[in-house]
């Protein structure tokens, strides 16, 4: 290891954030927020520096930090970035930064809230950065537990139920992942948790089949794979704004990332065996999520189901095992993360002011708060795949690959495009157009200060929509060799 350990520094920015927040007296909420903002900014700056210094023409794992930690078990402090986790890091940094800013008005137990949030994000960063199975699992679980208190204390609708359901579901996933990791470790000779050394060892076909399906189901629960998706809308609805943003924006990506990074790296042939199932579930998820979304009357449920639909797109891309498919899947993970963060962020503002997120009670919001409404409408347009927004490119690539590999499933999934347009525009029409509800007529529009985080998210969506090359070059520097290794 030479030079400045930037990856550890990124991880530590959240850990230091957590520690410094813990040192502040709880009544000084303003200071808590400022400190949170500071550490989130540090993380963002470091990640941006990393992104622009990542050499996509070289590809491979860069900025590697690898130190043996426990010799007898073969556990390494092993960090590195390649084209697959680079976008995820950027996503995490952006969503944390905007999430903290969005929660600026929080007064109730702010210290605990931001401390738990930083703990959650520490887990997410750790999972994305680590290349060691042991640490990956540890960080993964670190990111799950804070969800329970975050939702059950600061949450809204049916918060205890939502929190419990979410935690149980995700732990059920963990219960599949842990044995799979131990199994892989044992089959690899019980000498190393290093992902790439295990990959080199190579598993027998039977092992790969067993391992992959365990990892797929375990991580798939977190990625809201149909039919294990019902925790996700309920959890989103119950969670407070910034937690929804991080949860839907970043945490769900952990699931897809786990399938890609661990499952597909270790068991490519296992994926080959299960890919039909994976594509089937993904296609059902795409159409099903959009159709159920049509019936929802709660703004957050709507977003929750659109997430199910969009995450189906990620699954479909991964299942194709082609360069375009996986490029599209990773791009979709990023694009969907930013888009959902924008969704929840704008709904959060409306909910904070009107104390309702029921669509029939709102109506005509464009008149009352044009800018806040514009944020939601832009997110909705990104959600239905309007071109020159990041998710369009992702969907394009996924569909190209899907029609090539699974023609029937791919064409079936494209029907989802029509339904998702219908349901998003329906929501927009009922919430933001029409006669305004005079009950909310006096509510001020979003202030410039609170508009900034949303504008940043819109900026990211549009930037990568106009210049997809900036993202795709990075992603495919890892994906092309990855697909070549199948």
């Amino acid at each position, binding site marked *: 290891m030479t030079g400045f350990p930037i990856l550890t520094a990124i991880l530590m920015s959240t850990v230091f954030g957590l520690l410094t927040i813990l040192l502040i007296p709880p009544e000084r909420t303003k200071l808590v927020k400022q400190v949170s903002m500071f550490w989130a900014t540090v993380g963002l700056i470091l990640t941006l520096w990393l992104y622009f210094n990542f050499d996509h023409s070289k590809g491979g794992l860069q900025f590697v930090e690898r130190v043996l930690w426990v010799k007898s078990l073969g556990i390494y402090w092993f960090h590195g970035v390649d084209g697959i986790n680079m976008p995820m890091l950027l996503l995490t940094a952006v969503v944390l930064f905007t999430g903290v800013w969005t929660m600026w008005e929080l007064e109730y137990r702010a210290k605990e809230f931001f401390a738990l949030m930083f703990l959650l994000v520490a887990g997410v960063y750790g999972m994305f950065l680590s290349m060691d199975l042991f640490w990956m699992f540890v960080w993964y679980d670190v990111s799950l537990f804070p969800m329970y208190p975050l939702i059950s204390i600061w949450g809204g609708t049916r918060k205890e139920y939502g929190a419990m*359901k979410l935690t*149980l*579901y995700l732990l059920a996933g963990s219960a599949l992942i842990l044995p799979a990791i131990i199994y892989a470790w044992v089959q690899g000779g019980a000498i190393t948790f290093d992902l790439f050394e295990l990959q080199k060892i190579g598993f027998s076909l039977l092992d790969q089949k067993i391992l992959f399906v365990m990892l797929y189901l375990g991580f798939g629960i977190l990625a809201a794979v149909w*039919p294990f998706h*019902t925790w996700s809308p*309920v959890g989103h609805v119950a969670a407070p704004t910034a937690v929804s943003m991080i949860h839907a924006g970043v945490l769900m990506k952990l699931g897809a990332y786990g399938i890609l990074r661990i499952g597909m790296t270790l068991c490519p042939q296992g994926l080959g065996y299960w890919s039909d199932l994976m594509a089937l579930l993904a296609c059902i998820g795409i159409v*099903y999520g959009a*159709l*159920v979304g*049509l*019936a929802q009357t709660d703004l957050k449920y709507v977003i929750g189901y659109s997430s199910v639909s969009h995450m189906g797109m990620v699954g479909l891309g991964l299942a194709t095992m*082609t*360069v*375009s498919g996986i*490029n*599209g899947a990773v791009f979709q993970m990023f694009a969907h993360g930013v888009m959902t963060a924008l969704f929840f962020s704008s709904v959060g503002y409306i909910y904070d002011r009107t104390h309702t997120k029921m669509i029939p009670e709102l109506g*005509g919001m*464009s*008149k009352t708060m044009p800018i806040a409404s514009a944020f939601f409408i832009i997110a909705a*347009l990104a959600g239905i795949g*309007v*071109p*020159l927004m990041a998710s*369009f*490119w992702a969907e*394009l*690539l996924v*569909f*190209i690959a899907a*029609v*090539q590999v699974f023609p029937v499933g791919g*064409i079936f999934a*494209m*029907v989802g*495009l*029509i*339904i998702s*347009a*219908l349901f998003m*525009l*329906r929501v927009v*029409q009922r919430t*933001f*157009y*029409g*006669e*305004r509800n005079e009950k909310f007529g006096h509510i001020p529009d979003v202030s410039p200060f609170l508009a900034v985080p949303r504008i940043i998210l819109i900026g990211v969506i549009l930037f990568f929509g106009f210049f*997809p*090359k900036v993202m*795709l*070059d990075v992603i*495919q520097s890892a994906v*092309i060799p990855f697909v070549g290794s199948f």
Partner: protein
Amino acid sequence: MDAIFKDPVLLATVVGTSLPFLSMAVILIFTRHNPMLSSRISVTSIVVAAVCALLNLAKVAGASHPFRFETAWMSSGNFHLTFGYYLDPLSALMLTIVAVIACLVQIYSLGYMSGDPGYSRYYAFQSLFAWAMMNMVIASTLLQLFIFWELVGLASYMLIGFYYEKFSASQAGKKAFVMTRVGDVGFFLGIIILTLGFGNLGIPDLNNAPGTGTITTGFITMAALLVFCGVVGKSAQFPLITWLPDAMEGPTPVSALLHSATMVAAGVYVFSRIFPFFAASPNAMLIALAIGTVTMLLASTMAMTTYDLKQVWAYSTVSQLGMMVMSLAAGGYFAGVFHLTTHAGFKALLFLCSGIFIHEYHTNDMRVIGKQGGRKQLVPMICITVGALALSGVPPFSGFFSKEAILGALNAQANPIWLFAGLFGAFLTAYYSFRLIFHLLFPKGGIEEKHAVHEMDSHGHKEEHHGGLFWAMAVPVMILACVTVVLGFAEHSLQGYIMAGGGAVKHASTAATGGAAHGVVGHELLVILGISAGLVGIILAWFEYGRKGASRNGFLSYFPPVWKLFDARWYMDAFFRWFLDTAIYSGLTSIFTRNDRRIIDGGIDGICFFTETGGRLFSFMQSGMLQYNLLIMVLVAGLAMLFFIV
């Protein structure tokens, strides 16, 4: 970057097609609260764009080969996409049409929209619309074209639903977006199939592909028909017609733009853009011809029953688009493009004139406008008549020349049914156009006091007189009327311009028409038939609505079921509504929602319930009370003994 400043054509293209985007961004971000400045920015940028487009039109005429500029946009594996411009005579012509009409409409809107609370927003979306459409026109690859095609759809969604407080407006915007999306998914699939099967989405490459024999006719048919799905959606062909008549919920200048040069013209433009590719598949051409014919006839019948000024023109747009599709599908490449050009002029004219009436009388009903003395408004009255004459194909107005060209193309088809359908369509068009004109000119029961009715105010302001602003509306209308009068005589020079250097186009056109050597009827007879179809329609309308003592009931009113059928748009809307309600909302959606709540969640909750109840049950055994423990011990021991004994 350097290349941009070295090449004047490229510079003009970049500047002209990017300025409206900048103008939109500036308006949305900075000048939202300054309507005056917003409109100035938008109008200035579109005027510059129009000038650039005209410069390019002239430059392309002198060029020996089409102008092409490309730069890398994205790549994924072996899939590469470029962002670029492709300027050949067709795109240069279309770019000019779009820029000029958008420019006139924006100037007109200075008057029409003045005082509207959403003035800045209106100009921002107008800029977005112009930007998307211009970039679509000059796209160098089919995928880039599709991207801007979708943005055109987005801009129309925003503008149709401009008066968003009105439920009908937001409904119409949504309907337009979703219905065109249905076709767009087909288009999208077509692009994906072309990517996978052919691998090159460049428009000239696609057009040259059939000649090289690298792809089979079956593949071409499939790809062409899928792309045609997009045309069906965007150009409101059967069965996706009904969004367009509803789209007039937007402000009238928007309808003018939407119905003439942008949105709906996009579909026909794409058809002509990949015409040589399309023409390589006779089956695809035949299907397109049939769809175009059905569309034309259906829409004409719908226009015969409505009293809404804008709706008549909306249906007539659909039927004229059907005619363009027929023409292209019959191999009449130039005729289709020429009709697109003339139609853009006179349809914008018709809508803008109607807009003046609507602005003045605050109603869309032709009977009311007539009664209140619509004919006293000389400028719009004369201009709307010019437009209607052109639409009816009366010489020497521009519509006559292009309709004649289309009939010529249909005449070259072996089957005479297409020609007769075309003539019948021309007759219906003339009939419903002049039904409207005579309603305005000779109102039933004479003219009443002007300004008697002020309800149905379709746009949110109620000023009585606008003084100088009237000229902002009148001048564009007069310009368009002049164009409509003279454009027809430019047919031959335009033909020379469009067909110059179009080797693939010429070849495909000749192949599709079968050389145009034989016709069903002779050339002179065709001209006579064409003119008389229009005149018969006008005379019938005169007989029923114009002459003194006319009944002012169409002949259709003697057949109430037919009238009802036409009035209900052949029950197409009712069918879509029924399908959406039964199959989606109360079908799949509710089944799946119940599945989520009851079966999946119910199952999980059930497991939790069992775990909890089980825990409570067993905790009973672990209560720590000696008696219970003893009891259970005795019971277990007893059961065990029983087991061993028996």
